[in-house]
């Protein structure tokens, strides 16, 4: 009986310790039937990419409130690429405090969406499900 679950990594890069938002999103995705791996706070880009590799996740969500996203997010993408994981095969999204001006450059870097404060968890669930429904076939 084959069963394909959507596996999601929720991680907090950098030094801010406020993980309420990350936990709310992790829980919402779990309640939507996904398998969510939560890494805890204060992750380096390499730790996040390594967790993504070992857990073979389909989706990576980063949460950040410290303002260091323009520094850390591209480094996460690079750490993923170093491990042969490209933004084409995993869904990368982020949430937290990200100024509007930074959103476009982050999308260029591979992030499919940036969710700001006030986003409904329903929107995030729908976003992940829509992606999963139309995702390109994965390499076996």
């Amino acid at each position, binding site marked *: 009986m084959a069963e394909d679950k959507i596996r999601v990594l929720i991680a907090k890069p950098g030094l801010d310790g406020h993980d309420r938002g990350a936990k709310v999103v992790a829980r919402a995705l779990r309640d939507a039937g996904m398998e*969510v791996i939560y*890494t805890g706070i204060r992750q380096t880009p390499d730790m996040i990419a390594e967790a993504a590799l*070992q857990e073979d996740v389909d989706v990576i969500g980063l949460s950040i409130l410290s303002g260091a996203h323009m520094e850390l997010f591209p480094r996460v993408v690079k750490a993923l690429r170093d*491990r*042969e*994981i490209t933004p084409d095969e995993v869904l990368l999204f982020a949430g937290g405090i990200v100024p509007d001006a930074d959103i476009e450059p982050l999308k260029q870097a591979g992030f499919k969406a940036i969710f700001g404060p006030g986003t409904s968890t329903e929107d995030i669930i729908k976003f992940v499900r829509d992606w999963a429904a139309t995702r390109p076939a994965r*390499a076996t």
Partner: protein
Amino acid sequence: MPTVEDLVERLFAGNRRALSRLLTLIENDSPEGRRALRLLYPSSGRAHTIGLTGSAGSGKSTLSGAIARETRRRGRTLGIVAIDPTSPFSQGALLGDRIRMQDLTSDPEVFLRSMATRGNMGGLAPSTAGVVTALDAFGKDAVLVETVGAGQDEVEVAGMADTTIVVLTPGAGDDVQAMKAGIMEIADILVVNKCDLPNADLLARQVASIVDAAPGARRTPIIKTAGAQEEGIGALLDAIEEHRAYIETSHIRERHRLEQARHQVIALARQRLIDRLVAEHGANGRLDDLVAQVARREIDPHSAADQLIGED
């Protein structure tokens, strides 16, 4: 697009991304996953498999991290399979074992994979054995399987591990007597964790009296640890080594693995037969028909089952 054969080849070359992809295929019990297992199985059986079980909150993940660090200090590589429950309501799962093992992520010789139980009872995920096989074939010296928080009945891990460790904590002291029949019987090593808490010595004495009363040639060692402070971890690793040597020299390991193999083959055959029956009789309406007859009390469930398998 790489084939399963490509992935297996890359796994044998030490590629961790290929290993990880194969673990997913195996976990999903896909046809590719089964093909991968067929290719990997002959190269498995070398790793020492360690099962770690105990009640929720007994400190299993913290202890897993401490065991992993000590294993690495002793120069050996390790795979860890950490299992958390699937929600029976949403079928989703929150897998949080990595939180307690964050520092291990930077060690490329430790491979940690989280799994959800996906409805399986017994403390393991349905494809745990296959995932262990792949980590073993990848070349890990040891594979540690951490079960979900187990009660008295989740003993499945003992059927799969060479060495089974049961973790107890002070405060559960009064339950120790009741636990005799269940989870304590599967222990090759008993750990009294959180030994910095009050009553740890009392618990260790109670456990010792149960162990002393148990039949058998080998006395189950009782190790006191404080996982968060990494106390007693050296002694625990020594006990694991001692048990490994014991089962190898006394040929218990061959016997155990024979039992494991028998259990595995029967369990898989049973599942396939059931899947086939349900698929066949589900499609032709016979299953629904029999179920309705049972519900109306026209026939009893045993007779219905006999008819379903054609034994009437």
